[in-house]
């Protein structure tokens, strides 16, 4: 099989007695899961959150700046778009492996790859939000004497918010998902327990970690959605 997935028995600490659930390798053993929480799942979850947040923050910083620049100089839109789409099309695992010779088996490798994936989604989110601002609003703003900076930050940015949040949400969910593959590079994140248990499949370990990843994705998505709604009170208003 692969050279990366460690083989061996799943580590089932045996405190004297193990429940039937574990011995039978049922679908999900809550007791074992709870037991393993502090030593396996919780640290993995924390690492995963950290990896995701770093990737999104850095990715957003880069994409946001790029979008602002492309908004000013339209001709840059196509090149930026192509580069970021290219990065997005690369299979994550391949990108990880291509980076390893350069940046080693480190968190840096993971983050570079994760950031690369978020770029196109965030770039599009910001730029299309800015482009969707109605022309008459921009004309009125200019005509009233707002400077270009003022028009950008007081008018265009707030109106671009829904699109930006949308991009952030999709990027975050995808990052959580892809970060599981990081386990092939560093022993961190929710992918690690999954990998470790692959050769001797112990269901609870996979399902626990997998379910946590899905729940994390939904949680972060929900937080962003609520933040978005708080930032855009006018979208709720109805006649």
């Amino acid at each position, binding site marked *: 099989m692969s050279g990366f997935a460690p083989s061996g028995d799943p580590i089932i600490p045996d405190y004297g007695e193990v429940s039937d659930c574990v011995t039978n390798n049922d679908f999900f053993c809550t007791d074992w899961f709870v037991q393993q929480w502090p030593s396996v799942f919780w640290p993995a979850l924390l690492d995963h959150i950290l990896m995701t947040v770093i990737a999104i923050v850095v990715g957003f910083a880069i994409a946001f700046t790029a979008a602002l620049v492309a908004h000013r100089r339209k001709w840059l839109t196509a090149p930026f778009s192509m580069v970021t789409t290219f990065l997005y099309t690369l299979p994550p695992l391949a990108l990880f492996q291509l980076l390893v010779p350069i940046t080693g088996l480190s968190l840096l490798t993971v983050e570079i790859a994760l950031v690369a994936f978020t770029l196109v989604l965030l770039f599009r989110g910001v730029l299309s939000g800015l482009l969707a601002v*109605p022309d*008459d*609003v921009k*004309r*009125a*703003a*200019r*005509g*009233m*004497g*707002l*400077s270009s900076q*003022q028009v950008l930050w*007081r*008018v265009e940015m*707030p*109106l671009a*918010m829904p699109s930006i949040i949308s991009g952030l949400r999709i990027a975050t969910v995808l990052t959580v998902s892809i970060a599981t593959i990081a386990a092939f590079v560093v022993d961190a994140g929710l992918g690690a327990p999954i990998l470790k248990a692959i050769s001797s499949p112990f269901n609870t370990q996979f399902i626990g970690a997998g379910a946590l990843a899905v729940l994390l994705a939904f949680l972060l998505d929900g937080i962003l959605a609520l933040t978005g709604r708080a930032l*855009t*009170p*006018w979208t709720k*208003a*109805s*006649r």
Partner: protein
Amino acid sequence: MTDAKNTSTIVFDRATKIYPGSDAPALDGLSIEVRAGELVCLVGPSGGGKTTALQLVNRLVDLTSGDIRIGDRSITDIPAIELRRTIGYAIQQSGLFPHMTVIDNIGIVPSVLGWEKTRVRDRAHELLELVGLTPVPEWADRYPSQLSGGQQQRVGIARALAADPPVMLMDEPFGALDPITRTTVQDEFLHVQRTVGKTTLFVTHDIDEAIKMGDRIAILKPGGLLAQFDTPEKLLTEPADDFVAEFLGQERGLKRLSLYTLSDLDDLASADATTGRAPWPALPADTTVRNALSLAAAHGAEGVRVLGEDGSPIAAAPLSRLVHLQSEESV
């Protein structure tokens, strides 16, 4: 309100604009003077340069040659952005910021100019009352998406007035409204403009709107040339050339009559001096002469009667008076 005192003239001095890539001028040597407190309408067919003329004033478009002065200062004396903050600007789609409440929309220029928050808020409240959006608390915190087209335009006007600018530019502001709303908003705007007395340049493609709103009207023809600049009365009775006559249309005789009301007719006979078989319709004194004529025709009557304040007929106006306006002795 400080509005009544803060108003300036607008002078176009051979203002010309030629857009790059085109040989013909969009505006060709326009020279008119708008008096302080006056409402001048710019009308004409498309290609006449009326929107260009407007946009030259707040430098959304730059002059190719000539000058425009507000008060005694050329618009090129100060940077464009500063200039725009001293000019009220209202456009057709209102261009209200969807993400700001009504109050915040109105207060945008004052707050950009650095007014304190309480002063901005008070000013916004004052303006909401001026444009008839009362009680103020009901409207202040709404978002533009919660307003009808007419209400949005009123907020747009309040916003243009917010920083108490000496002049106002309006670019077909009522064009997107349905006819009934448009009439209401026109009347309200006339009332506001008379109250605050601000010099206003009003672009419209609708000659009837121009006649109704304008103290004077400037008609621009294709090629950006000024065809005539006069009061509505003068335009309708003495069109300068064939273009103007055609632009005003064959109904200009009737249009002229809409400038007058029954109360403008003096020396009328008493209410029982009616002729013909059909009874003469009784109309309030503020009915326009044109509408009176129209109603007489509808009833097949030879004139109309004028109602007094108590609601009873006090005078009779025969068709000849409706057409001639002045009585025979004064002709």
